[in-house]
C-alpha cells in the first residue's frame, strides 16, 4: 500500500481489499473576453453561431492569432500550481474529424506545454491531506456544441464555443478515493477563482473533468485504466468514480480483465457506459501548427505576473490558523472562496476572530446556503455583522438577541446599532430591574428554589425563566450572578 492511501480509502470487495487509482485531466475555461485565437466573444449563451468569427468557423484562408490575455492567465494559473513555467512552448494541431471541430484539428499543446510540473495540496474536511502532482498545464481550443436530440435524422451544430480558450490541467495518478478526487477539483477551482483565471462555473461547462480510473490490489502495479469523459459536476465526479471502481472490481473478481476504453458518465443512472461510437484507435497526427510561431516569453514577463499574484488559498489557510487561531476545519471552510475569506477578515479585524469565524460560518454561510445565495450578494455586509459583534461585546445585546438582529438586518437591512436602540432590544443591565425579576421567579417557584441548593444544574432553568420574564433582554451574566446569590449556590 502506498503512502497516498489511508486504510479507510480501500474498497472492500468480495475477495478482499482494492485500491482505486485516479488521475484527472481538468479542462478549465480561461476567463477571457475573446477566444484563444480570434476576437469573437466567449460569453455563455447567445444565439447559435453568433459568437463566431470567420476564424472560428474555419473559413478558407483564415489564420489564428493568439490572445495574449489567455497566455497571461495560463501562466498565472501555473504559478498558482507552483509549477514550472516554460518560456518556450509550441502549439500543435491535434487532427480528427467531428462536426463541431471546424478546422478538422484542435490547436493544442502536445510536446511543449506552457506549464510543466507542479503540485496541489488538497486538505479534505476530515483532516486528511494529499499532495497531488501536476504533470502539466496546456492551452487549447474548445470545440463547438452538437445537439443530437432535436431531430431523428439530424444533429445541429453551434460553434459559439468553438475556439474558446481552455487550460487542460493534467494530474499525476496521485488520487486514491472519490473524496480525494472531489476535493482536488474543488481545490483547483478555488485556486483558479483566487487567481481570476477560471470562473469555475460547472453548470456552464467552465470546468469539466476527464477521469482516469483503475483499480489494483494494494501494493500491486497500476491496473488498466478507463477514461471517463467530460464529467461536469463535483458530485458527478464522485459518483462516476465510485461506479467505475466498483464496475472494475466486479469484473476482476469474476476473473475478467479490464479493457482500456473511453466511457461516458450518465447522470441519470449514475453509471458509466462505454461510448457507442467506439471508433478505431485514435491517431491524432500531432504536429506543430505551421500557422503559429513558437510561443516565446521572457522571464521578466513571468516575474511581473508572479509579483501580482494574490495571496493563495494555502497561504491564507496557514495565516488564518496561525494569526487568528482558527481550527484547520474553520480555516478550510473560510478559504474556499476568496470573497468568503475577505468577508471573514473584514469581520475579524480588531474583534474576536474565533467568534467572527463562528458567526460567518454558522449564521452567515448557513443562511446563504439555505437561500441559495452567494457571499458576494450577501444581504448582511461584513460591516453590519461586525457591528452586531461589537454590540455583543459591549454587552448591549445578548448572543440570542444578536441572532434576532442578524435576521432583521438580513431581511430589512439597516444599521444594527440603530435597530437595537430603535426597537428597544438593548440588554437590561439595570440591576434593580433584574433583581426584581429574579425575586419574582424564585417566589413563584419555591420548591424548585429549594431543590436548587442541592441540584445546582437547576440554575439553568431559573436563568431561562428570568430571561423569559425580561423578554430576553436581561444580561445573562447579571442574571446568573444574582441567581447564584439568591439561591445560595456556590
Amino acid at each position, binding site marked *: 500500500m502506498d503512502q497516498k492511501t489511508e486504510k479507510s480509502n480501500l474498497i472492500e470487495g468480495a475477495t478482499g481489499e482494492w485500491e482505486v487509482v485516479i488521475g484527472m485531466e481538468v479542462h478549465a475555461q480561461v476567463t477571457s473576453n475573446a477566444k484563444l485565437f480570434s476576437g469573437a466573444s466567449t460569453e455563455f449563451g447567445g444565439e447559435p453561431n453568433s459568437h463566431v468569427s470567420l476564424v472560428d468557423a*474555419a*473559413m478558407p484562408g483564415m489564420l489564428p492569432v493568439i490572445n495574449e490575455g489567455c497566455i497571461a492567465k495560463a501562466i498565472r494559473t501555473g504559478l498558482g500550481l507552483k509549477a514550472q513555467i516554460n518560456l518556450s512552448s509550441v502549439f500543435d494541431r491535434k487532427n480528427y474529424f467531428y*462536426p463541431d471541430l471546424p478546422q478538422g484539428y484542435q490547436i493544442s499543446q502536445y510536446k511543449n506545454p506552457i506549464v510543466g510540473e507542479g503540485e496541489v495540496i488538497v486538505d479534505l474536511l476530515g483532516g486528511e491531506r494529499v499532495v497531488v502532482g501536476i504533470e502539466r498545464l496546456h492551452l487549447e481550443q474548445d470545440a463547438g456544441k452538437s445537439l443530437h436530440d432535436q431531430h431523428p435524422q439530424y444533429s445541429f451544430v453551434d460553434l459559439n464555443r468553438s475556439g474558446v480558450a481552455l487550460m487542460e490541467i493534467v494530474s499525476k495518478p496521485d488520487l486514491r478515493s472519490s473524496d480525494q478526487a472531489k476535493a482536488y477539483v474543488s481545490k483547483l477551482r478555488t485556486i483558479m477563482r483566487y487567481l481570476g483565471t477560471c470562473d469555475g462555473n460547472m453548470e456552464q461547462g467552465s470546468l469539466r473533468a476527464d477521469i482516469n480510473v483503475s483499480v489494483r490490489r494494494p501494493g500491486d502495479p497500476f491496473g488498466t485504466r478507463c477514461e471517463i469523459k467530460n464529467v461536469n459536476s463535483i458530485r458527478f465526479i464522485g459518483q462516476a468514480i465510485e461506479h467505475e471502481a466498483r464496475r472494475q472490481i466486479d469484473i476482476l473478481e469474476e476473473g475478467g480483465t479490464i479493457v482500456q476504453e473511453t466511457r461516458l458518465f450518465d447522470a441519470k443512472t449514475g453509471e458509466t457506459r462505454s461510448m457507442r461510437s467506439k471508433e478505431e484507435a485514435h491517431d491524432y497526427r500531432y504536429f506543430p501548427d505551421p500557422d503559429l510561431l513558437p510561443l516565446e516569453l521572457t522571464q521578466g514577463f513571468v516575474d511581473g505576473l508572479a509579483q501580482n499574484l494574490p495571496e493563495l488559498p494555502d497561504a491564507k489557510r496557514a495565516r488564518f490558523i496561525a494569526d487568528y487561531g482558527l481550527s484547520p476545519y474553520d480555516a478550510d471552510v473560510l478559504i474556499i472562496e476568496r470573497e468568503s475569506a475577505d468577508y471573514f477578515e473584514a469581520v475579524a479585524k480588531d474583534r474576536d476572530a474565533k467568534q467572527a469565524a463562528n458567526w460567518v460560518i454558522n449564521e452567515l454561510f448557513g443562511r446563504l446556503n439555505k437561500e441559495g445565495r452567494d457571499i458576494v450578494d450577501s444581504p448582511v455586509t461584513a460591516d453590519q455583522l461586525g457591528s452586531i459583534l461589537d454590540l455583543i461585546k459591549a454587552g448591549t445585546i445578548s448572543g440570542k438577541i444578536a441572532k434576532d438582529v442578524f435576521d432583521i438586518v438580513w431581511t430589512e437591512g439597516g444599521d444594527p446599532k440603530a435597530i437595537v436602540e430603535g426597537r428597544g432590544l438593548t440588554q437590561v443591565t439595570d440591576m434593580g430591574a433584574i433583581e426584581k425579576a429574579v425575586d419574582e421567579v424564585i417566589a413563584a417557584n419555591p420548591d424548585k428554589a429549594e431543590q436548587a441548593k442541592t441540584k445546582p444544574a437547576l440554575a439553568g432553568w431559573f436563568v431561562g425563566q428570568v430571561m423569559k420574564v425580561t423578554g430576553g433582554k436581561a444580561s445573562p451574566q447579571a442574571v446568573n450572578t444574582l441567581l447564584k446569590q439568591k439561591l445560595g449556590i456556590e
Partner: protein
Amino acid sequence: MTKLTDLTIAEAREGLRAKSFSARELAEAHIDAIDRANDALNAYVLKTPERALEMADASTARLKKGEGGALEGIPLGIKDLFCTKDVRTTACSHILDGFTPTYESTVTANLWAEGAVMLGKLNNDEFAMGSSNETSHYGPVVNPWRRKDSSVKLVPGGSSGGSSAAVAARLCMGATATDTGGSIRQPAAVTGTVGIKPTYGRCSRWGIVAFASSLDQAGPIARSVRDAAILLKVMASSDPKDTTSVDMKVPDYEAAVDRGVKGLTIGIPKEYRVPGMAPEIEKLWQQGVEWLKAAGANVKEVSLAHTKYALPSYYIVAPAEASSNLARYDGVRYGLREKGADVISMYENTRAAGFGAEVKRRILIGTYVLSAGYYDAYYLKAQKVRTLIKQDFDQAFETVDAILTPTTPGPAFALGEKSGDPVEMYLNDIFTVTVNMAGLPGMSIPAGLSSEGTPLGLQLIGCAFDEETLFRAGRVIEEAAGPVFKPQDWWSKR
C-alpha cells in the same frame, strides 16, 4: 499606337495619368481580349466584367480629382486561391463548389485599396497542387506559347497556370499568384513572364486558401521586372491577422529596378548542375552569368550541399501540412456535400467526390507521414533537412548577394505528357523548391527561347527580405535577353 493590352503596368500608369485613355477603355480592352481568348486558353475560371467596369469608373473618378493609388485603373487577374468578397472562390476544387467568401484576402484588399481593377478569377491547379495546371476542376489551362510549327497544346506551368497564361496572352496586365514549391516561378518561366515569390512573411497569407502553411507565399506574375516590383510593393504588407507575416517596412521595389548590379557578387551553386541537365538549359545559365558579369557583377561558385534533399523533404512537409489544412473541407459549413448514411460516410463521400486525384494523393501521403510512429522519421526529419538547406544558403550569402540558377529543368511540356508518374511531375520543381524550404525570395526572369521556340527562365535567389537585389539583377537579365517574349496570338476569336 500599341494595343492597350500590350502596355506594361508602368506604361499604362503613365497613360492613365496623362488621360491618353481611360480606365474604362483599358478594362474594356482586357475584357474583350478575355472573351475572345478564354475558350482556347481557359485561363479564367470566372470573369467579373461588371465589377471590372465599376472599379474602372471609380478609378477614373479618382484620377480626375488628381487622386488615385499606385495601381489606379490597372486591370489584374486574381488566382482563384485568393478569397474575394462576394466573388466565387474555389481554389479550382470541386469541393468548394459555389463558395462565395464574405471577406477579402489581405493581398487583394491591398491591391483594391491602391485602385487596381479586378477582371476575374484565374485558373490554377486544384488547391495549388500541381506543376502543369492539369489538376484544376475547371480543366487545364493552355499555354499561349506553341512550339515552332506545332499546334500541340502546351502546359502553362503550375500551379499558377491561369496567372502565367493570362499575363503572357495579354488577358490582364499582371496577376496574383502563389508559390509553395515553385508555383509562381515555374509557370512564369514557361510562359516568358516575370514571377517573384517574396520572402516567406512578406505577403500576408490571410484570406488565401492554404496549401502548405509554412511554405505558401503570394507574389505577382507580370510582363516586366518593373511591373513585378510595382505589384509586389502593393501586395506586401505586415498583417496583424497573420502571425507569420513579418513586421517590416515594405521597401520601394520599383526604385531598386534600375540600380544595376555593379559590385554585386552573384553565386552559382554547383549542386544545381544536375546530372542529365539539358544542354540548352546549361547554355542559358551560362549566358545569364555572362550578362551579369558584363553589367559589372562578380560571379562566384557556391555550394548548396543539401540541394538534392530539398525536393524529397518538400514532398513530406507540403503534403503533411496540406492533409491537415484540407481537413476543414468536410461538407458541413460550405462547399460540396454528398449524402451519407451517417456523418462519417457523409465526410468520406463528400471528400471523395470533391477532391481530385492529385489532392487525394497528397492528403494520403501527408496523413501517412504524420501518423503514429512515422512523425519523427518523416515530418520531423524533413523539417530538420530544411534547417540544413537554410544553413547552406546562410553560408552562401556570407559571400554572395544573390544566386543564379535555371528556373526549370526544361521548357513547357505538352498537356498529358507528364501526368502518368507523380514523381516525374514533382521533378519540375527541382530548382525552385529549395527556395520555399528556406523561406527565401526567388524570382524567375524570361531569359531565352528553347530549341522548340518556347520560353525559358532564369531564377535569382536572394537573402531573406532582400527582394531588392533580385529586382536589380532581374532587370539586368531582362534587358540583356531583349524583348522577344511575346507569343503569337493564335487563340483569339475574331
